[in-house]
């Protein structure tokens, strides 16, 4: 199950160099960036610099984690990619996407927040249907597509339940179904499982990996957990705070599918240790 690629691994770099996507990773396609961040700078009106000079390329069907302490701007990166908020400097390109008349790219993404962020007055079906409804689609025409999204997260039979009737893990599943219902190219996830208990989190980790393998979307996953990022990702972008910046870009070479035997393997431990070390460097004050 665990590939010998444990020897590949880590290229901790400071300042970050452009990432070259290796051939050892089955899902990536070299040279075909889906999203390209160049010199991205974000300062708030109170003077706080949230991000300084972030360069990042994300390929098609990659699984990338943004890892770092709180305040390192990893969620800000995610929101900027989603088009929420303006850049202070730099640019975010979508080389493979169409550009509309107003000059903004067709982003084609789904977003999962840290909270399930469901509409409490609407049923599970209506919550998942929301992105399609906002796009002007009719409920009747989209019924199958919504039900398919619910089936993907194992929530068949819950279409008419209200969010309050569901447990935390189930609400998060609804949130994931809503993000996937439009069949997006990119799934952005902002610490989606941080509030869940460990057993539920492991289960959702596995479900997420299965969905990613079965479909062709890219995942950009924000987390502060070394263990979660190593378990899930092909690639981990380590960030540091004050100001928010990228300090390392590491590859996790272990093959997919990954399961609980990977979680307990030596290779997994070694990756975790290496990532932890670069994270500790991130916590130290800049020289």
């Amino acid at each position: 199950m665990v590939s010998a690629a444990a020897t590949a691994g880590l290229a901790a770099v400071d300042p970050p160099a452009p990432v070259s996507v290796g051939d050892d990773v089955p899902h990536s396609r070299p040279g075909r960036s889906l999203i390209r961040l160049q010199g991205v700078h974000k300062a708030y009106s109170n003077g706080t610099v949230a991000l300084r000079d972030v360069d990042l390329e994300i390929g098609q069907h990659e699984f990338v984690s943004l890892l770092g302490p709180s305040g390192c701007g990893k969620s800000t990166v995610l929101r900027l990619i989603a088009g929420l908020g303006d850049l202070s400097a730099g640019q975010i390109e979508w080389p493979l996407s169409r550009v509309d008349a107003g000059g903004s790219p067709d982003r084609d993404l789904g977003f999962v927040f840290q909270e399930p962020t469901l509409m409490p007055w609407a049923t599970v079906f209506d919550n998942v249907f929301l992105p399609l409804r906002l796009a002007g689609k009719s409920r009747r025409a989209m019924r199958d597509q919504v039900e398919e999204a619910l089936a993907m997260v194992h929530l068949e039979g819950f279409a008419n339940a209200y969010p309050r009737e569901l447990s935390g893990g189930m609400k998060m599943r609804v949130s994931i179904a809503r993000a996937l219902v439009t069949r997006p190219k990119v799934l952005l996830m902002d610490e989606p499982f941080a509030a869940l208990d460990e057993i539920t989190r492991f289960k959702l980790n596995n479900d997420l990996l299965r969905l990613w393998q079965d479909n062709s979307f890219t995942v950009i996953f924000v987390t502060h957990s070394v263990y979660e990022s190593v378990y899930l990702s092909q690639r981990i972008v380590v960030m540091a705070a004050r100001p928010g910046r990228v300090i390392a870009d590491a590859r996790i070479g272990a093959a997919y599918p990954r399961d609980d035997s990977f979680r307990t393997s030596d290779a997994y431990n070694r990756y975790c240790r290496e990532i932890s070390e670069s994270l500790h460097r991130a916590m130290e004050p800049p020289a």
Partner: protein
Amino acid sequence: MTAVDTAPAAVQPDDLDSAPVFATAPKRWTETTWARVGIPILIGILFIGLWEVLVYALGIRRFVLPRPSMIAVALVEHFGSLMASLWYTLKVTFVAFGLALVGGVALAILFVQSRVIELALFPYAVILQVTPVVAIAPIVLIWTGLDNVYLALLILAWIVAFFPILSNMVLGLRSADHNLINLFQLYGASRWQILRRLQLPSSLPYLLGGMKISGGLALIGAVVAEFVSFSGGESGIAWRIIESGNRLETERMFAALILLSAAGVTIFMVLHGLQHLALRKWHESALKREN
């Protein structure tokens, strides 16, 4: 212990543990319900009995404090004319409440859409609210003319009922979950879609809370306005109270009061029921917890 009332097909036991329970089973007539209804009734009967006996024993004069039995007789005797008067007052109340609801919601939506409009108008809404309606009544009456008292009553009751709706609705519209707003923006939702699909449903609990306050206030406003402007051909329940006072028919005064209170309680209960119906499926306030 825990159950989901939709009887799901694919239950995942490890995932269901902390799901809260909504009460959907028919309510049982329990001991506590008996206590909640029975004890106040018992207290009421005792109080009325004591009143009857004391007034009789102490020889208190009828026009100072009539016995409950006399009030009951007056209530039956004058029921027709009192109900007609009450209906007049209630018409003012309902129309004023309806206009307050429409106006308050519309203005709140306007405020939330445009900061400039809010800055321009909100202070005046506050001034209208904090100035006692009794003090405004004479000038409103002059403007409408004494032959148009109904319109004056309507305006005065509306002023009182309007503000709770406006301020609660503004608060409600602003309370929409920020992440949900982001989500709507992400999917390119228009302002109208955000209003219709997110802000209006989010504000519903606030609006219903405001309506409960405002419904009672509309009745109070109508009665106070009648007191200040009593004259003219038509007459509401407040006018009956003043008339009875002038004639020292104190028992008729009490009878009118009883009807007025009953009307107020009914308005409250109807709005309370509406709130329950609208929120029982999803809102925190309708949730039954076992601890």
